[in-house]
């Protein structure tokens, strides 16, 4: 099994396509960081126009923690598309090259074969997130420094003390990994049904775009189905940045306002991952391999 995993990882990282995601992430984060470094104050003022009419802010609002939050808001909607590039190619890519039948002649069960492929795409997803964390969080901290984190929610503003932020990012990135793993599992599942990579990649992207649009629109009909869409749960990493307040309306350090929401969303995402992987195994075991 470990040998299979090694082979799959070797195959993933031998393909130039794998590095498109890393390059795209690097370019995107780099450009946003440079833009914010140059005109970040204007950006912050624009975003906070409403509240800056009444309040004055003294301190470094545009710091590494806020920049990372802005980047994650932008990226975690689009990174799934990059993950689909690899995950949706895992089985269909072999079918396309005609190597699938040959691979299955090896002394490993189809379940082992499929699990190794999924674990390889999970490792790729993990590495991509680690790369995002390095660039978005650590490089931003280096470029912009650190201070309290002031973020805007729909109905309120949150100020997190500098010492209460890092662990929240750790939690948010773990949650984001689960969200991206769901995308990976979806792409992986869809890759069983095609003989070329384009179909599953485009289908995965389409599903994510379609679901994300449904998740974002505040139309009563859509709001009823939103809890059942995994894209609705994927953005709940933000809950890590919403602390509880005490009776005096002061935040409680180290607390989360709605931990239940994180747990529920995590369980929903885990259920999706398990569901897609199990469904993939069941279908693949019964599948006629003709390519």
């Amino acid at each position: 099994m470990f040998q299979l995993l090694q082979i799959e990882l070797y195959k993933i990282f031998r393909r130039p396509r794998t590095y498109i995601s890393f390059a795209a992430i690097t370019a995107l984060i780099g450009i946003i960081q440079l833009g914010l470094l140059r005109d970040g104050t204007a950006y912050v003022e624009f975003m906070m126009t409403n509240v800056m009419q009444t309040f004055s802010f003294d301190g470094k609002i545009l710091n590494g923690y806020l920049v990372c939050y802005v980047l994650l808001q932008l990226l975690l909607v689009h990174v799934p598309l990059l993950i689909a590039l690899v995950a949706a190619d895992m089985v269909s890519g072999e079918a396309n090259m005609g190597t699938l039948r040959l691979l299955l002649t090896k002394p490993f069960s189809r379940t082992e074969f499929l699990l190794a492929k999924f674990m390889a795409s999970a490792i790729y997803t993990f590495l991509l997130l680690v790369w995002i964390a390095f660039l978005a969080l650590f490089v931003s901290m280096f470029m912009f420094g650190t201070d309290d984190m002031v973020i805007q929610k729909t109905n309120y503003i949150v100020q997190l003390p500098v010492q209460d932020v890092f662990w929240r990012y750790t939690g948010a990135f773990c949650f984001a990994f689960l969200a991206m793993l769901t995308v990976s599992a979806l792409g992986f599942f869809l890759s069983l049904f095609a003989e070329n990579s384009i179909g599953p990649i485009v289908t995965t992207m389409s599903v994510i775009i379609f679901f994300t649009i449904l998740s974002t629109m505040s139309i009563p009909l859509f709001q009823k189905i939103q809890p059942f869409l995994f894209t609705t749960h994927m953005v709940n990493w933000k809950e890590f940045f919403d602390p509880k307040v005490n009776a005096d309306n002061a935040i409680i350090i180290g607390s989360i306002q709605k931990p239940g929401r994180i747990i529920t969303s995590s369980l929903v995402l885990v259920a999706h991952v398990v569901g897609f992987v199990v469904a993939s195994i069941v279908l693949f075991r019964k599948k006629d391999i003709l390519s």
Partner: protein
Amino acid sequence: MKYLIAALLCLQFHSISYGQDMMELIKKVKAKLDQVNDYVAEGNMKTDVAFIKAPVGKVKVYYKKPNRFKLKRDGGISILPKGGVTVNMSTLIEGDAFLALAAGDAEVNHVKVKVVKLIPTAQNSDIVLSTLYIDVARLLILKASTTTKENGSFEIEMNYGKYESYGLPDKLNFSFNTKDYKMPKGIALEFDDEEKQTEAEKIRRKKGSVQINYSKYTINQGIAESLFK
């Protein structure tokens, strides 16, 4: 007719002298505050605004005559209502470009006080009207309500303790009106159903307060000008 004119003149004289009394009272309060040329105060600040979740933080307050004032959070970002917190009692009664009118007696925290209305005479003054509640016996301002042109209305309530002899409060509560806050869901990327606000909540969201509990003052030790930049 003679008696009527005499009565009106007496009334006019009484109101002028009463107004002068108030100016005298203000001068006495000012003389007490004038003992302080500068100070550095340390304390805890709590911002209580319904739509701001902020931590209680340590603050340092710097003041230098005549009206230099700076509040700095001891590490971190401070969110303060515009204009208001930086107003202190010395700046309210600075100079004599105002009219002081007596507005009767009242009670603040079970202490009998004189109510004095200050009307600035300078046309470019941001302050439209200030009402001071003065404890005459101790020559302390216990409460001040101010209406400004640019920054709305606010109220400052002060409790005194160790530094009473300098007219410096141990606890300051600054209340103000604020505009409600709202951000589009699409920008905040929040997809969950919004909790409906009750009427009480809507009213609560239009009021805010900042409370500062001072633990220590360092008075008249000199402060570098650079601190106020």
